[in-house]
């Protein structure tokens, strides 16, 4: 007789599609974002294949433009933004703070349906022939020139924005109001801190991009000339409003990954984080300062030089909390008891790639240098180091770390290590050459390009093929573990945290009565045995 868990408590499609259990909703998200990841990945593969030769012979220019647009839209709005928050955050935040569910379980389910509805709009746009504006929807191309399915895609983004807002709202209220007795702010796992910061961005930024894409749709359908230069409208205003959200959105992607890495590093070094409050507050600092830097996307766009100076300065400031995090993670490993299980390998991969991604961001914040590298492959390489090397490595690391808790099963560790290695190698081969091509001057979104850039593109496409294999392997062994995996203990890693105290997989209510928490997470040494800084 199997014990009752959230997985076997209720069977049939309806028990999943109408569930209010945050853990089941997390799995709904897991399945749907994986589907979108595969779709977005296919678009990326077509883009990379096209760029194998300089002449643009595989796809027509129009098709190519639609491919990179759909790749961007799907990956940003339908994979990266929901990835860690909606799957791991949804699953873990209530458990980590000792609650039975999020504050608003019905709204949580609603946000998944909104996400799916937005996704449907985007897929309909794709199937009807796609959209070719780039994921940035820059006016006046998107309002006056493009004759692809801009409105459908914009509405998809608009709708899914509300899913993100509702998730953020739910997290904020939950973290404020649902913490168990004894779970003080400074005992919160760093994963929860980073999700709190992420939620702030979701609720403060997302509505602005929602209204902005709505304005684009209104300009196309209702002829409201909000960005029309003929009426005195300013295309640069669109860029302001768009990046007011879309730059902080990068932190929506990376902050949760940072939270995951904080957890993994502590668990596999069996050591509490070095400088807890610095790591916690750096998340908030990134979220807040991250809102003040959007104009570094506009250095060559005709923005005032003085505004540029402010944005450049603030962009450099946001580097500091990121640096603090990296140094603190490294210091956490010092004198730890380090075990190189697969989640830790992903975390190390994250540390390396995020460091490069973050530091190359400084190139773009440097005004004089940005003039040259803006809108080249240098930018493409930089943000993929953050979004793929950072966010996806963090997501995969987290998935490997908590998979035994989510599924109650162990996956194949050798395969997991192997795939971590493949992803790391494939990733660097894909995106490092793009830095070189970018500094050489290869503009982004080019269907055909001068032949002297070809060698870098061939390397990149080769790397992308390896990367694709690296992403496929986990899907296989995770799937296999569900069928034939060894049963996991409550705490397979010897980690410390509320989620490891309850059964794997957890029961529907997480905790039978509200727990009374006595200490923070990842305390591996009793307080009486504490020693000072060496």
């Amino acid at each position, binding site marked *: 007789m199997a014990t009752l868990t959230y997985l076997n408590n209720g069977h049939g499609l309806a028990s999943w599609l109408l569930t209010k259990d945050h853990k089941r909703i997390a799995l709904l998200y897991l399945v749907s974002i994986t589907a979108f990841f595969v779709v977005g990945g296919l678009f990326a593969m077509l883009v990379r294949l096209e760029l194998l030769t300089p002449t643009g012979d595989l796809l027509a*220019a129009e098709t190519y*433009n639609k491919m990179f647009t759909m790749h961007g839209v799907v990956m940003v709005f339908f994979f990266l933004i929901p990835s860690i928050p909606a799957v791991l955050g949804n699953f873990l935040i209530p458990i980590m703070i000792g609650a039975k569910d999020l504050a608003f379980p019905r709204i949580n389910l609603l946000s998944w349906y909104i996400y799916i509805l937005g996704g449907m709009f985007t897929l309909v746009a794709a199937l009807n022939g796609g959209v070719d504006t*780039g994921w940035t929807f820059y006016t006046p*191309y998107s309002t*006056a*020139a493009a004759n692809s399915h801009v409105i459908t895609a914009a509405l998809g983004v608009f709708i899914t924005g509300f899913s993100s807002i509702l998730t953020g709202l739910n997290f904020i209220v939950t973290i404020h109001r649902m913490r168990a007795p004894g779970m003080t702010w400074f005992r919160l796992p760093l994963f929860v801190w980073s999700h709190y910061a992420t939620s702030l961005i979701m609720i403060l930024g997302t509505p602005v991009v929602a209204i902005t894409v709505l304005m684009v749709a209104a300009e196309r359908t209702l002829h409201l000339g909000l960005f029309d*230069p*003929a009426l005195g409208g300013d295309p*640069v205003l669109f860029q302001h409003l768009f990046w007011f959200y879309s730059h902080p959105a990068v932190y929506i992607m990376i902050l949760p990954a940072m939270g995951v890495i904080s957890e993994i590093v502590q668990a596999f070094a*069996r*050591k*509490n984080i070095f*400088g807890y409050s610095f790591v916690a507050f750096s998340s908030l600092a990134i979220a807040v300062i991250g809102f003040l830097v959007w104009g570094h996307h506009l*250095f*060559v*766009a*005709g923005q005032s030089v003085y505004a540029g100076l402010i944005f450049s*300065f603030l962009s*450099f400031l946001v580097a*500091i909390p990121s*640096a603090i995090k990296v140094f*603190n993670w*490294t*210091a956490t*490993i*010092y*004198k*730890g008891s*380090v075990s190189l299980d697969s989640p830790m390998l992903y975390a*190390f991969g994250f*540390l*390396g790639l995020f*460091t490069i991604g973050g*530091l*190359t961001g*400084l*190139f773009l914040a*440097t*005004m*004089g*240098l*940005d*003039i040259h590298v*803006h809108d*080249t492959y240098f930018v493409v390489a930089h943000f993929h180091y953050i979004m793929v090397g950072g966010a996806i490595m963090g997501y995969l690391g987290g998935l490997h770390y908590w998979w035994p808790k989510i599924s109650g099963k162990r996956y194949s560790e050798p395969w997991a290590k192997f795939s971590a290695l493949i992803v790391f190698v494939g990733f660097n081969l894909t995106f490092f050459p793009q830095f*070189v091509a970018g*500094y050489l*001057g290869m*503009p*982004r*979104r*080019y269907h055909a390009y001068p032949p002297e850039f070809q*060698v870098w593109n061939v390397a990149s496409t080769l790397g992308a093929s390896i990367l694709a294999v690296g992403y496929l392997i986990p899907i296989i062994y995770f799937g296999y573990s569900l069928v034939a995996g060894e049963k996991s203990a409550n705490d397979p890693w010897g980690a410390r945290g509320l989620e490891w105290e309850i059964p794997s997989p957890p029961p529907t209510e997480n905790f039978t009565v509200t727990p009374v928490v006595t200490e923070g997470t990842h305390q*591996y*040494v009793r307080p009486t*045995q*504490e*020693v000072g*800084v*060496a």
Partner: protein
Amino acid sequence: MFTNFPFFPQQASVQAGQVDAVYFFLVAVTAFFSLLIASLIVAFAIKYRRRDDSEVGAAIHGSLALEMLWSIIPLGIVMVMFVWGAKVFFDLYRPPAGAMEVFVVGKQWMWKIQHADGNREINELHVPVGRPVKLIMGSEDVIHSFFIPAFRVKADVIPGRYNVLWFEATTPGTYHLFCAEYCGTKHSGMVGSIVAMEPADFQAWLGGGGASESPVAAGQRLFTDLACNTCHIETQQGRGPMLTNLFGGKVLLQNGATVVADEVYIRESIVNPQAKIVAGFQPIMPTFQGLVTEEQLLQLIAYVRSLTRASREGAAGTSQ
């Protein structure tokens, strides 16, 4: 197959060296910190590897001194980047006085270029080395971006307004010109070349090319064809403001504000004449939006500028 692939772009303008110097500084910083973090992680992972499953790490909670250290040092480094980058930006942004002016109009998917003497080019720009060149750029449709990698310069070309870009080529040769802002289906076809020539060769090219009428002459013809001259007469008695000696000066408006009569103002006064009414005049001028192309607008501006005595030029506006 890949016999000729560069690792590093050519340096062919006076700005390229400045930009590359910043770049090398940042590459050095990036390499140093990436290697530092990577080697620390590898070293710690080996030295402190778990030898027994019952082990836990040492109880270290943090160190304020270290936190300060690794906040303040990076802060100092990025402030160097900020100041240096801003200085390079200002140098790249502010055109020097006396630069040779060229008009550029971007449209899907070509670059239309007009030299001051009437030479016109498409997707190709001939310039002399050793002389600053200033581009005044407008767009007929969507946003484009004028990008010359070998010169390390780039500026968006935005409909409804003008942007400027300047450079000074140092080495004769042919360089890539790219459109860097995505502008539609044939975005990657909106490319061309910059041909930098020795001054003598450039003069020869100017003479040899089929120079049509200069922008000033074309502007003057348009001025008559569009009947601008019926109101804007050469005295103060016209129904429209007198344009002689207008350019570069300050204009008093009906609502009491003043505005500098630069290219943007002249352009606005043609396409949207009601936006700024000069004090003492009636708002009777019709709009020419849609009646004149971006190129013709630039020609009209060139003509209006030519009505200002050379001595006034440089007082304000872009013409210094």
